[in-house]
């Protein structure tokens, strides 16, 4: 990345209220012509401290953000501990070190969405230090979620061109579906995505879509308890088999575009579907061996295929084209053939034993 892509401040920034605070107000350092002296004591990420400069004016947001998943990455923290059960962070320094070094660095500061790109993609100012209330998907969201949700949404999955989500093609941004609390937090200490009750639902906009009177025959014969919208309206998603843990490359990652339907492991009132689309998560039994061998003791009890609401929705997909493309088609269901020797036994819980016929 060119230095100008990272540090160049545009003249338009001077129209932004934040410029009136002065650079040193947020970043420290000194307003002098000597470069080295000017950068002494400089804080390149002033928003990393939630009680710092942002809180002076946006305290209502920073307060809520303390418990937000974007800040705490609590979902990953709990997920990792669940894989390591009965080990825990308190008694296992290796586990804590793995989380601190490989997982907790994913958390986002205010600036990493509203001013600059996330550090995971080398950082840098995305619009000459202009503050944007709506984070640009391709610059910031993509920086962290580019291999999955954001990548599939805009049709650029980690650099590979894919078909963008129909909502993106229609000009919709993340916040057109997601409530701001999905990014900034609800004010509660959030423990995982599934527990957030303000997540969007297709039927928030597409009301009464499942109806016996629907002109679309498929909508008339399938109901919500049967399957999620994604089952028919999403396409192949990116599946990772491994996690980039070791710096020396000894933990390689393979990723594959696949489309798999499986059973809903967590059926509840919000997600009553029996069949859902799946994604393989980047987890292998030995991925943390570089920290401590056999750390993920509970690996066998947690499925590596998870329900996903892929953000690559299309009106027409292979599934919508013909009944035969789903009914009786073993290729798109997670079956015995998909379970490899190194996958956890728990994958059987979501495997489809008998592919639906007619």
């Amino acid at each position: 990345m060119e230095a100008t892509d990272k540090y160049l401040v545009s003249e338009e920034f001077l129209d932004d209220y934040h410029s009136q605070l002065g650079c040193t107000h947020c970043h420290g350092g000194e307003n002098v012509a000597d470069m080295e002296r000017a950068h002494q004591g400089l804080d390149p990420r002033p928003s990393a401290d939630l009680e710092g400069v942002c809180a002076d004016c946006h305290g209502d947001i920073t307060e809520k953000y303390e418990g937000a998943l974007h800040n705490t990455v609590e979902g990953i923290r709990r997920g990792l501990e669940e894989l390591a059960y009965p080990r825990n962070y308190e008694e296992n320094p290796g586990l804590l070190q793995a989380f601190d070094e490989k997982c907790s660095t994913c958390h986002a500061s205010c600036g990493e969405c509203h001013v600059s790109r996330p550090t995971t993609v080398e950082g840098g100012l995305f619009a000459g230090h202009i503050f944007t209330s709506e984070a640009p998907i391709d610059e910031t969201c993509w920086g962290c979620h580019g291999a999955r949700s954001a990548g599939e949404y805009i049709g650029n999955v980690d650099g590979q061109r894919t078909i963008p989500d129909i909502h993106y093609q229609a000009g919709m941004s993340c916040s057109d579906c997601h409530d701001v609390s999905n990014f900034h937090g609800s004010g509660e200490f959030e423990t995982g995505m599934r527990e957030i009750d303000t997540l969007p639902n297709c039927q928030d906009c597409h009301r009464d879509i499942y109806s016996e009177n629907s002109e679309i025959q498929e909508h008339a014969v399938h109901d919500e308890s049967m399957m999620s919208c994604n089952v028919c309206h999403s396409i192949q998603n990116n599946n990772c088999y491994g996690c980039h843990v070791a710096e020396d490359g000894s933990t390689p990652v393979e990723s594959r575009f696949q489309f798999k339907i499986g059973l809903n492991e967590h059926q509840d009132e919000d997600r009553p579907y029996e069949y859902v689309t799946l994604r393989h998560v980047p987890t292998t039994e030995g991925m943390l061996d570089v920290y401590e061998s056999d750390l993920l003791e509970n690996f066998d009890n947690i499925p590596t295929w998870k329900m996903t609401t892929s953000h690559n929705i299309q009106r027409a997909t292979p599934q919508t084209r013909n009944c035969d493309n789903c009914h009786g088609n073993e290729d798109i269901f997670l079956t015995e053939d998909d379970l490899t020797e190194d996958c956890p036994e728990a994958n059987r819980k979501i495997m489809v034993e008998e592919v639906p016929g007619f």
Partner: protein
Amino acid sequence: MARRTKRYMFLGVFAAFLLLIVGFLLYQQLPGGVVAGRESPDSENCYNCHSNPEMIEELAVIPEEAAAGG
């Protein structure tokens, strides 16, 4: 013109010149300045470099930990 008047005029001009110098020096010490024609507190030196692509290329020597972040 009377000699005394000339002397007062010279002293007046000299005093005004001194005041101008002192005023300018004081202004340099005050927080704030003008950036691209606009008032901007404590920023003119920062901005002069960071708005200049050629200067930015020089800034590339700054350690990574000081790279622009959030």
